[in-house]
Each structure stands twice: as structure tokens, then as C-alpha cells.
């Protein structure tokens, strides 16, 4: 994210960039494979930090969420990054950096980072962190807060609306439902999307999905 951009713009910018960055196609040459076209590179994430960027409350904010309690215990050993399967093949995704940035209070950088959405939630980091930081949960908390700011990658919008429409995350084509029965499977149990919609209204999830965050 360029820092010279006016402040209001920050709200919409990350999402647009995200969509652009992730329109991957299998036709792209192999040489590009290891470069995910995220706006931040490892070096620039920590480069030229401006004083106004620090939000000293950010780490406390994170620690107040379930799963974020141990954030402040991180001693930057790097186990999370070195054991992260995604970091192996991404030149920008580094869980330790995200944790460090959060501890420093670089809230805007963390929350608008495209790399935030690359975590596979495999929980290897959480299992191996010597300081019991629930790294994967901390990243989930970052994402949840980013969503409150209006940043939701398209795929999650789709999954969310599918769930509210069908009860499950995918819309299963009629043909497949027929095939189920041809192969001797019982019909797929009915779902109750109405109940889910009610819950989604109640919690504000519906509003989030519509992007009015």
C-alpha cells in the first residue's frame, strides 16, 4: 500500500488489489510461479515505518480476542515462518513478520496486507510455537478485523452467501443430486437456510457479507 494515498482510500484499495492479485491462471509461465503478486514484499514491509503508523493499542486489541491471548509472548524465534508450508513457496507471506508488525502496532499495514489471506490454517505454527502463541488464530483475528473494515476477498463472500442460500458452502447442481441416487446414495439431507439467515441477521454477518462492514 503506498503511504502517500489519502486516508479514506485505504478502505477500498486493499480489496481491489486483492482481486487483481489473485486472478491467477494456469496459463501463466512457470517462472512466475513463486512470485505472488502481492503489493508487499518482505523487505518493504518493515521499510520506512512512519511514526504516525504505530498504534500501541493494537496488540492489546488482538489479545482480547479468543486465540489472541498469548500474542505478546512472541519472542520472534521464527519457528512459525520456517515451518509454514505457505511461506516455503511464497516470497511475501511470513507469519512471524505479521506477528512482529502487530506487536509494533503497525495496524494498517497488517490489516491491509494481501498476504493475510494466504494462511492455510494448517495450525503447524500454532502447534510448534515455543511460546504458545496461537499464530493461526492470531492471523484469523487479523482477518476478522480486516473484514470489519470492509476487506473481504471475493471467495469468502461467495462461500458465505452460498451457506446462507443452501446451508452448505457450495451449490450442488441438480445433475449431481440425481447422480447421488443413481449410485445408490440416499438423497442429500434437506438443509434449513432460513434458520441460518435469521442467525446471520442477528449477528451482523449478513451485513458484513454485503460489504457494508
Amino acid at each position, binding site marked *: 500500500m503506498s503511504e502517500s494515498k489519502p486516508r479514506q482510500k485505504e478502505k477500498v484499495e486493499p480489496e481491489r488489489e486483492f482481486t487483481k492479485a*489473485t486472478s*491467477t491462471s*494456469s496459463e501463466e509461465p*512457470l517462472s512466475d*510461479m513463486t512470485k*505472488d503478486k502481492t503489493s508487499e514484499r518482505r523487505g518493504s514491509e518493515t521499510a520506512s515505518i512512519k511514526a504516525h503508523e504505530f498504534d500501541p493499542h493494537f496488540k492489546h486489541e488482538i489479545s482480547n480476542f*479468543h*486465540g489472541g491471548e498469548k500474542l505478546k509472548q512472541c519472542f520472534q524465534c521464527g519457528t512459525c515462518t520456517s515451518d509454514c*508450508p*505457505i511461506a*516455503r*513457496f*511464497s516470497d511475501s507471506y511470513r507469519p512471524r513478520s505479521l506477528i512482529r508488525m502487530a506487536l509494533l502496532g503497525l495496524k494498517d499495514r497488517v490489516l491491509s496486507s494481501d498476504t493475510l*489471506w*494466504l*494462511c*492455510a*490454517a*494448517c495450525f*503447524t505454527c*500454532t*502447534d510448534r510455537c515455543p511460546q504458545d502463541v*496461537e499464530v*493461526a488464530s492470531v492471523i*484469523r*483475528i487479523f*482477518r*476478522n478485523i480486516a*473484514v470489519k473494515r470492509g476487506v473481504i*476477498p471475493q471467495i*469468502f463472500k461467495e*462461500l*458465505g452467501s452460498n*451457506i446462507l442460500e443452501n*446451508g*452448505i*458452502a*457450495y451449490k*450442488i447442481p441438480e445433475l*449431481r443430486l440425481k*447422480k*447421488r441416487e443413481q*449410485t445408490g*446414495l*440416499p438423497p*442429500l*439431507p*434437506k*438443509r*434449513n437456510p432460513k*434458520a*441460518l439467515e*435469521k*442467525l*446471520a441477521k*442477528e*449477528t451482523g*454477518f449478513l451485513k*458484513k*457479507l454485503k460489504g457494508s462492514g
Partner: protein
Amino acid sequence: MDVNKDSNQKAWLLFLGCAVPYRVSSYEISTRKVLAELDIKLVEMPEYNCCGLPIDPIDHEMMLILAARNLTLAEEKGLNLVVLCPGCAGTLRKVNKKLKESKMLREKINSYLKETGREFKGTIEAKHLLQLLIEDVGLEKIRSAVKKPLFNLQVSEHMGCHVTRPTGAVDFDNPENPEALKKLIEVTGAKYVDYIDKSACCGAPIAGVNDKIPLQLTKEKLIHVKDAGAQALITVCPFCHMMFDTNQPRIERMFNETFKIPVLHYPQLLGLAMGFSSEELNLKGLRVDPTPIISQVSDRAEGK
């Protein structure tokens, strides 16, 4: 109410999740076959919904509510849940545990569920298929159901992260040195082959955001599996299966590699050892041709 009465069959409520009915029906077909053989009665689960995991990244609370709603459906039936997808299983186990332990969280989630006439009480368990096989059916019973041991086969596993991780929340097996699937494979008579980074993630969960990293991770694992000399890879996750099976031809093209490694759902392997035919187990539903495996199995049968 008590389905377990008057029967030597144990009843479990089947949680199908999203991916299995959407794209991975051979997993469901073979699971139903082998569980029936092991005297497990599966009860269908009307009104179920997504476990919640896919939306955890955008709204943790809504995830908790979706998972809790499923748990209340099982409580109502008085049945434990058996889950095919490790993502669903991990989520339901984690949320079940959290809600049982924390009164505060339970009250909060229940305040929402009340709107739809439900309440989480904390009376049931949720288990992944593997856990059910190991803990409730038991290796001895499975061994005695094996009619055609697969002595000619040599296979590896990819268990999938959420069967065992995160350790404290899932409470099953050991992610650093998993044994459950190994034991279950060995019980079929097949030879188990280990390989480098066996318990590493295939990357599937981010395929919708960035498909290149998962394809690379999967490719790397396939190389290790091939080098180890495995004739097939065994999975217990619909998403991992899509990475290794559905995407295998694409990976071969992209990286100019040849693998041709059939990827079977564990119940398909067990089913073959029980003597089910490849049709009954829907082996033709696999993308990578499993004929070499099938011929190994039938060779033995003919040689008998």
C-alpha cells in the same frame, strides 16, 4: 429416541459437510460400505449446515454459531457425530470442547441459537472417521473384517492437517508422528511406506485465493511419495483428495512430471481388503486411473 437399543449395531449421525456431496462422492460411497460391514449404523442428518470453517476467516463468531447449531442437531437425536472431512471434524470438535468448557461463551452462543429455538447442551461427541475407526470400532474388529489382505500393495498416506492439528483442541493422534492412518493401512495387509514431510500441508485451503502455492506443495509431496516407491496414496480428506487426485494431471502438465499415482480414500482401500469390488467402492470415480491397483488386488484373488 435411543437408536442404539435392540441392536448390536452402533448408530452414529453422519455429518457430510460441503465438499463431499459437492465433488467427492466416492469417499461417501466407500465409507458407507465399510462402516456397514463393521456394524456401524449411519443415521442421516436433516437440517445440517456447513460446519462454519469456510467463514472463520471472515467472522469467527458466526463460525461458532454454525458449528454449534450442528452440534445441537446431534444432541437432539442423542447421537454422536461421525465426520468425513477433517476440516469439519476439527471445527466441530474444537467448538464442542470450547462450548463445553466455557460457560460465558456457551451463554453467548446460546443467546443467538435461542432465536431459532435451539440450545447447546454439551451432551455429544464429534469424531472424524479415522478416530471412530481407531477408538470405537477398533483395529481387531477391522482386522477380522479383512477377507482379502492386500499383501501385494505398497502405499503411503497423506492424513490432512485437521485430523490432528491443533493438538490441544483436536486431541487425537500425534501430528508430528501420526500413527492412526498407518495402523489402519497396515491392518489391510498393505505395506506402509513412509516419506519425507509426510505430515506437511497440501495447501488446499488457500486454493481459492492463490492456486499456485497449493499446486507446488502438492507436487513436492507427490515427488516424495513417488521416490518412496508407493503405488498409491491414501487420504481421508475431500480437499486433500482433490489436490492429489483431481489436480494430479494438471500438476503433471504444469511441472512436466509423471506421477500416475492413484489416490484412494481410506475406506476404498479398506473396502478392497474386505472384498468389495472396485465398482462397489466407486473406484472409477477417481481421476487418476487406479487400474494398476485393482489388478494387483484381483491377481491375488485369482491366484488363490
